[in-house]
């Protein structure tokens, strides 16, 4: 019986935790100390106990009863007090304000880009921001004194070291390490010594993609870009490729998407052309394959690259690139 009473004490404790109203308290009262309550039944069983145990058990039962009555009194006071102070709930008052943070809008675009290419089974890699002349230019078929270097005004850190002007060097580094077939994207910061203004920034982010396999074609490049651009803008876009020139791809193309704002009808964002220039792209130049010892007769591939800022500005209707680096909380909280 002693063990039973120990359990009873626990049961009472547990029951009390769950009491929230006078009614519930009343039920518990009846359950334990009502005329036919649990304690009354124990008292009845007393007569069947061996005489030497009777005083001990009686004492325990009385303690439990006293304790219980005290608890009921306290609880009753507490509940009545609550009742008096209970306020009217004004459901129109604003709720508790929890903290919420935000990813930087560029990170959001970067993450979406990664997700899309992961779903297309691309690998994701990164490369250094401090680069050598070799990886940033020469291995990309852009020797010294090549006029194409004019469009990429470069920050130099030393004779042969610079801040990468594009993510394309990562292509070369990745191909040096990996054997074909290749499918990879790389996203990161790039630097060009352009003065900061609403549409230029000396630091910006690029996404670079590379696919190399036995039968990769220019048509495949168009296909992958269409999927990516449709997914990132969450619209079925048309794409247009116009001839362009990058030393490390050939044929090279400037990739435009039908304007996602006016759907091609013409607006201020697309300067009434109906098209938005987004990416540079092309088939990997055999000289680049040569610099990483790939056999360009066996392997073909495409590469593309473009600015994350540009994607973000179009998608979120941002008209000044400087906002990304000013980091005004009121700007950041809008995304």
């Amino acid at each position: 019986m002693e063990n039973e009473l120990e359990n009873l004490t626990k049961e009472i404790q547990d029951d009390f935790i769950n009491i929230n109203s006078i009614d519930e308290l009343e039920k518990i009262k009846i359950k334990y100390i009502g005329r036919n309550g649990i304690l009354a039944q124990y008292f009845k069983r007393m007569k069947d106990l061996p005489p030497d145990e009777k005083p001990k058990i009686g004492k325990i039962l009385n303690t439990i009863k006293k304790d219980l009555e005290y608890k009921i009194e306290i609880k009753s006071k507490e509940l009545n007090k609550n009742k008096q102070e209970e306020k009217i709930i004004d459901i129109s008052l604003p709720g508790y304000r929890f903290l919420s943070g935000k990813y930087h809008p560029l990170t959001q675009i970067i993450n979406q880009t990664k997700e899309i290419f992961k779903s297309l089974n691309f690998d994701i890699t990164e490369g250094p921001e401090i680069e050598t002349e070799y990886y940033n230019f020469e291995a990309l078929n852009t020797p010294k004194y090549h006029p194409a270097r004019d469009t990429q005004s470069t920050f130099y850190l030393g004779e042969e070291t610079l801040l990468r002007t594009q993510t394309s060097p990562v292509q070369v580094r990745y191909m040096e390490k990996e054997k074909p077939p290749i499918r990879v994207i790389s996203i990161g910061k790039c630097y060009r010594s352009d003065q900061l203004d609403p549409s230029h920034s000396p630091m910006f982010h690029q996404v670079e993609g590379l696919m190399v396999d036995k039968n990769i074609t220019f048509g495949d490049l168009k296909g992958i870009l269409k999927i990516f651009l449709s997914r990132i803008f969450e619209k079925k876009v048309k794409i247009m490729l116009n001839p362009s020139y990058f030393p490390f791809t050939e044929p090279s193309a400037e990739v435009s998407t039908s304007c996602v704002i006016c759907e091609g009808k013409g607006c201020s964002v697309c300067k009434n052309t109906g098209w938005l220039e987004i990416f540079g792209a092309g088939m990997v130049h055999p000289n680049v394959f040569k610099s990483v010892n790939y056999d360009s007769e066996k392997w073909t591939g495409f590469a593309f690259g473009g600015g994350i800022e540009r994607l973000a500005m179009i998608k979120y209707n941002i008209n000044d690139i400087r906002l990304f680096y000013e980091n005004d909380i009121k700007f950041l909280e809008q995304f």
Partner: protein
Amino acid sequence: MKVTYNWLREYIDLDLSPEKLCDKFNSLGLSVSSFTKLGNDVHNVFVGKIEAINPHPNADKLVVCIVSLGNKKLSIVCGAKNMNVGDKVPVAVDGAILPNGVKINKVEIRGVTSNGMMCSGKELGVSDDEEGLLILPKDTIVGKDIKEILGLNDFCYDLEVLSNRPDCLGVIGIARALSAVLKKPLKLPEFLIKEDKKIKIEEFIKISLKAPNLCPRYSARLVSNVQIKESPLWMQIRLKNVGIRSINNVVDVTNYILMETGHPLHAFDYDLISGKSIIIRNANLNEEIITLDGISRKLTKDVLVISDKNKAIALAGIMGGKEIEISSNTKNVLLECAYFDPINIRKTSKMLNLSTESSYRFERGVDCEGVLYSLNRAAYLIQELADGNIIKGYVDLYPKKIPPIKIKTRYSRVNKILGSTIKNKEMIDICKRLGFKILRKDNNQFVVQVPSFRKGIYKEIDIIEEIAQIYGYDRIKETIPKIELKVFSEKLSNKLEDFIRKNLVSKGLYEVINFSFISKNWFNKIGLSKENPLVNSLIDIINPLSENWNTLRTTLLPSLLDNVRLNVCSKGNKNIRIFEIGRVFFKKENSLEEFKTLGIIMTGNIYEKGWLQKDEKISFYHLKGVIEDLFKNLGIEFKVLNETNEIFNSDCSASIIVKDEKVGICGEISNKIVSLFDIKSNVYYSEIKLPLIEKYANFSKTYLGLAKFPGIRRDISFIINNNISAQEISDYLESIKSTIIEKIDIIDVYEGEQIGKGKRSLTYSITYRSANKTLTDEEVDEVNDKLIDLVSKRFNAQIRKIG
């Protein structure tokens, strides 16, 4: 490169509208950066003939002219002096509009009604001449719209010419590119040179080519007895329409040819060439030349100059010398047309920081075989416009003919690369239209000879690009790659970074992104010593954009502190919780190092004021809580240890330690630094090096099961001396080996008079649980009492048992 619709039409029949032509340009890779209708800002201006010039009754300096517009006569008050009766001039009538939005109305000028205005070249925006009226050629038809006369009924395209297409840096080249895609023939201008047969050019000038590597070809002609004067109006306007200022007839001709054929020419005043000899040679070290722009330039041996007997008279292919330029006194003109080595021109242009229309073209490569055509065309135009006599013959030094490039192309390869189904015949046809000569062909392949005006075409892939461009990128179908299976796994560093961002954002922090460059002066400003590794490892940018961005950051603090300053001081955002993941850069003994770092900065209140939110100031413990939660979720155990740091206040400065390795720092930014940036509130900062925690992070999850038996809690308060850290006690508690201690939490910290000065009370809540059974109070108390005993002895603590 600017070109107008009408100019193009001289070389190719265009049945496309000016607007549609834009699309064609784009599809050729000649991206149209602007398309303007010329003369859009000129209305109601007509050709008028001055029939009478009468004095103004009330003003000495004004006259009243009677001007005929053919169908009517107008009386116009005028202040100009340069006109005569019979002259034809532009007349802006009542209601006319001139460039810059100037409106012309009928007005009364000193008592006389003026029914319009006669215009100067400047007023019409066709020249800089504002001195007098624009006198039109005598044969101009009266009454015609001036836009027609001045070539303003035209459209101007500003084209971005790709660096591998220097052939499109001339109007003829653009017409040629269009002709390939539009399937229209190219019409080259035809002209006839009338040479003065008396004396041969060799008797006037001796030209020696001393540097044939840098100047593979040099040709010249001499035009004598020229009359230097203004160019005819059509020439002035044509140049003006493509952005070139008219100078005089001879200089204008060289510029006209530059725009027409894309080949830069130079005109020397023959009489100023000393020794009547031209030497094409390397400059002497420190040789000086004053170029046309009036700047004296010191040369090196790598620079190619055109020299006379005594000294350099031109920087080859870049700019002529001042002394020998064409002036109003020039009588005889030596015309130069050459082919210079592109790389040498580019090197010189870079070295001298001097880029011109001429160097721009030479460094991209002009047509070596087109030298004589351009030379003759220029001589012809000078003969026409400046009444010169072309001296018999020409000089053409071309010692080593540049061999044409021949390329073999496989039909199958074209379609393999493009994913297209272009027919063999169409490929051949496209090459022919582009000016490639088909040397051989069979069923599998064909061999072409690349025309001399095309640059950068050496390989089969270049021919494939040519075919693709003319065939049309838009005709190649979008496909999905057929590829081999390959499986990738996400890199740990990537995973870590994404995880951290997610964790911090979920806790209410905002992510920021800052420039990687900062000002070297920042470290000076906050007073960091030069020996501090943050300072002595800085990597400087050799050519920074400004002093504010002259070095690469070794810490994220300058940027993040600046974000706080901007938000708090100028944007009115007082409560800041932000973080950044970015690279920091260090100069090591033999290398430059870069790695990613996490920076967290917080200041102000944790919440914006709200009816349920009390003013809870952000403290060190908020920052530490952020780090704790992050590390906990990364499965990393860490400690913070007091460590002084120049950037933190000494009483709140710590290092973050994982397994005896310092992975980062945290603390309160020193009052000195904070006040330097005008920030009034306390700022808390932490920086953690990601590569150092990457190896400890654990992303693998395993289910551990749930507790089967109830736990028992005991709360204990220890009153201890202030100098004992909570960490010491926690460490000690954890060192006590007991299998039933599940976790130990600090639930209260109290300092106050009740427990005495120099003391504080730490209340711990200890949860006991066994994996095998329900614990009894006795079992728990046994351990709990032992624990209390050990702690009180070890730390001389007073105990307050609670429950």
